[in-house]
């Protein structure tokens, strides 16, 4: 399992194994201030990062960062 959360430090603190850094609490998977196509690309990058995370070997709480610069 991968958790997608803007509150990733808490996820890390309580010991979640695979953590994906999300955008913000009211909109984890995307950013409404972006044009909708860019927003959709950002969401895709977050989901791809989460898919990568569940295919990755981890031994302890591990943070995965979506490559946001690639989406804008």
């Amino acid at each position, binding site marked *: *399992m991968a958790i*997608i959360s803007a509150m990733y430090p808490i996820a890390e603190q309580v*010991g979640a*194994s695979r953590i994906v850094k999300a955008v913000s609490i009211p*909109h984890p998977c995307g950013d*409404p201030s972006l044009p909708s196509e860019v927003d959709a690309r950002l969401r895709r990058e977050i*989901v791809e990062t989460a*898919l990568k995370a569940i*295919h990755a070997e*981890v031994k302890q709480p591990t943070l995965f960062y979506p490559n946001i610069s690639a989406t804008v």
Partner: protein
Amino acid sequence: MVTVVHVINQFFAGLGGEDKAGVPVGTAEGATGAARGLQAQLGDKGKVVATIYFGDNYFHEHPEEAKAAILKEIGSRKPQVVVAGPAFNSGRYGVGCVEVCHGVAESLGIPCVTAMHEENPAVDAYRGYHDLNVYLLPTRETAAGMNEALMAMAGFACRLGSGEELGPAREEGYIPRGIRRLERTDRPGVERAVEMLLKRLRNEPFVTEVPVQIWDRAVPAPPLSPERQATIAVITTSGVVPWGNPDRFKTYRNTFWQKYNISELKVLEPGKWEAVHGGYNVAFMNQNPHYGLPLDALRASESDGRFRLYHSYYVVPGNQGSPSVMKRIGQEIAADLKKEQIDGVLLVAT
């Protein structure tokens, strides 16, 4: 003199071991069995007015009847304090003690003290109940620790019976219940916080004022194999549910989860979904439910055949969820994921 009712199992009442574990709830006037030891520790400060016993198996096979019978006996005697156990590492006995104390605290409002080994499975239930009136003292693993346990319980019983206010767990020695209490102090928070920070920077010992709950450590699951097409499910705590909130989730403190079918959908249309959650501004989520359930992106990623998205998504609005309830919900969802043979999960948390 403090009046006490002592609740024990059939073994410590002297009725017998496993062969007598089916005996129903019974009452003896005064102190009998282990309650005599408690009476000895109370001395002239307290009196065991009755000993109530239950068979370990009886309590588990008839939990409602057993609890009701015990509460009725206690209620009719109106003691100042109820003492249950010590149960040491006995799981059935421990659960009986914690359940009785919880029932007494809830319906009779009488303070309770119980005792058992810290690894007794009932300790988790005690932590989850957060009863202001129940104190659980740690004991040794076996009845070899009987005398010291009874002594500690007698001490607590006298103090509780006289209406004395007890201090925090770290000073009094009971197992923390996860209750935060306000205290008055002469120094403002900023001064205390900076002092703690400086101590921490100097590697000196300090005591936090806000202890954090200790969580179970989960071993990371092995990674999914790229060789095989996995079935992936999504869980969201954002509260995104079909428009109209058909299962009537509340905006806070939910006690159940639900799953909704998305097998025919490529995207989530605004106006057909809504976010039920009292802990964040749901305006963005209502305009675009994909922020909490990224179905559009998942369908795009699914199209190359790497994985298959499970036909439904799981949801519980997470706002103000109590850890014990959320743990139960997590276990129920995990059991369903297993039953549905789901390989991997993405959990979107607001």
